[in-house]
């Protein structure tokens, strides 16, 4: 088979047609700062840094996408909150912006179009658009956003005990998130990753999801004017995937505790899978272990397409060393060429 571009490779794989090889997504976010030798705060202060690092890292590790994701709490900044930066990991959302129910009444939906904070994301997508690799934009789902807006404990209380205010908040978040997603699609994103760890039944029981998060997702799918991928961070997805089968959803993440064989047996041809290298233990993998882990994953899950190899969290940790990343990339080239020989 002729060599495909990364763009062709990814779209062929997610539609369960055999591409030339299994696509690889190395999810570099703050890792770009390491590559450019600057602090994480400085790195994320300008889209130029992110664009440069995305290009450099893709060339270096020969993987198959551009990642326009900055960090989750960027969206909280857009709502008027703050991010707390550390030297070696993702920035964290600061003090919750919703402390009581009246804060939900008074919450203003950010002016997404003119937001100086979100502008960096659009600039990144614009600079990377229409190249040979797909550009992946990200939104934190309206359903998971309140974990940062109000703190997880208060949010669980809201879902269980204040359903009217839960919906009040969802309506505002959905208005904001749909706009953020669509402006990213306009700016150059090929697909929107809908980050929603709360959709995992590890996080929330299914009966509650059916009354809340799944409804929010359905509403959002009507509003988002493009392809969507669902990401549940490191959470298990098996019990949720059945609810995600929709023509607009092309793929879903899977965790290092999910079984790709079982997932594909149940959902082959209906949705593709992205995962599931364990990025926590990756930090102390040897080069050989990295190769073996990739090989095993290909062996278990790559047959017939429908698999993109990535980590399970959506963010490569600072302490993963370059040799391991090179080894992952080389193993994908070595073992992931279609037709698979084993």
């Amino acid at each position, binding site marked *: 088979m002729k060599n495909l571009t990364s763009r062709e490779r990814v779209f062929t794989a997610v539609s369960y047609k055999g591409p030339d090889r299994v696509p690889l997504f190395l999810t570099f976010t703050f890792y770009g700062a390491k590559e450019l030798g600057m602090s994480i705060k400085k790195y994320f202060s300008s889209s130029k840094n992110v664009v440069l690092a995305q290009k450099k890292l893709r060339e270096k590790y020969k993987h198959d996408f551009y990642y326009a994701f900055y960090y989750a709490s960027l969206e909280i900044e857009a709502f008027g909150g703050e991010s707390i930066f550390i030297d070696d990991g993702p920035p964290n959302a600061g003090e919750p912006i919703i402390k009581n129910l009246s804060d939900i009444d008074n919450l203003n939906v950010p002016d997404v179009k003119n937001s100086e904070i979100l502008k960096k994301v659009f600039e990144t997508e614009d600079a990377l658009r229409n190249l040979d690799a797909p550009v992946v934009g990200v939104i934190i789902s309206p359903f998971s956003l309140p974990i940062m807006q109000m703190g997880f404990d208060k949010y669980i209380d809201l879902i269980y005990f204040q359903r009217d205010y839960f919906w009040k908040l969802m309506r505002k978040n959905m208005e904001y998130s749909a706009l953020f997603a669509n402006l990213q699609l306009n700016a150059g994103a090929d697909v929107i990753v809908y980050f929603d760890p709360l959709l995992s039944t590890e996080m929330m*029981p299914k009966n509650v999801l059916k009354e809340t998060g799944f409804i929010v997702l359905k509403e959002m799918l009507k509003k988002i004017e493009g392809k969507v991928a669902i990401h549940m961070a490191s959470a298990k997805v098996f019990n949720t995937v059945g609810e995600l089968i929709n023509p607009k959803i092309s793929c879903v993440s899977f965790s290092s505790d999910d079984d790709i064989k079982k997932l594909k047996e149940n959902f082959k041809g209906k949705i593709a899978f992205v995962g599931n290298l364990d990025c926590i233990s990756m930090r102390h993998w040897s080069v050989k272990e990295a190769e073996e882990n990739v090989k095993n994953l290909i062996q278990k899950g790559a047959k017939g397409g429908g698999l993109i190899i990535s980590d399970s969290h959506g963010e490569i940790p600072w302490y993963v060393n370059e040799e391991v990343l090179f080894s992952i990339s080389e193993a994908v080239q070595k073992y992931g060429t279609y037709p698979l020989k084993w």
Partner: protein
Amino acid sequence: VKKIWRLEMKKISKKILEYLLEGNKIMVDKIFNETFSNNNSLLLFEEIITEVMYKVGDLWENGEISLAQYYLVGNISEELFNKYSEKFKFSSKQKVHDKYNLAIVTLEDFHGLGRKIVLSFLNSAGFEVQDFGIGKTVEEVFKLSINKKIDILLVSTLMLPAALKVKDLGEKLKSKNPNIKIVVGGAPFRIDKTLWKEVKADAFGETASDAVKIVKRMVEYEKSNI
């Protein structure tokens, strides 16, 4: 009589757990109200709650319940423990485990759900625990632990960088107080089962119920060495 009583308690625990998992505070409160009617109820209360907590720990470990349910069980149990302690005038001095200084903290991260669940479980099991809060640096936790003469420090983390910092924290603390015990928990430790040893913690709790078991074990061990 003891056997019948045990069976009865098991039935009550089962019902309480069912309602707790639904987040049905009103029904749990109703059962508590019917069951605990005099001031000898503390031990009975502890026994039932401990059984519920262990059961819920198993359910969580086996992937049968969600994090939200786990939180609700801890939160409602704690609220009702406080309510009935007040009602029967259990002062904190009467709590059975108050000889040791315990503290809990979320290191660096600003998401405090894990800490909150563990705190609720420990409080419900009758432990007095000082809450050092969220987003604390190694230096801040070190100073607080030394000033408050902490014997057992529970450290909750969400992200890997914070988990790795437990090593620095432990070294600093043990240089001042070699007997201090450090118990860790949180996502990075659950995903990488060897991480707690790498950061030289004394113990790792996979669940909040584990945290209760570990702390109980540590307290018992200390007692046997007096």
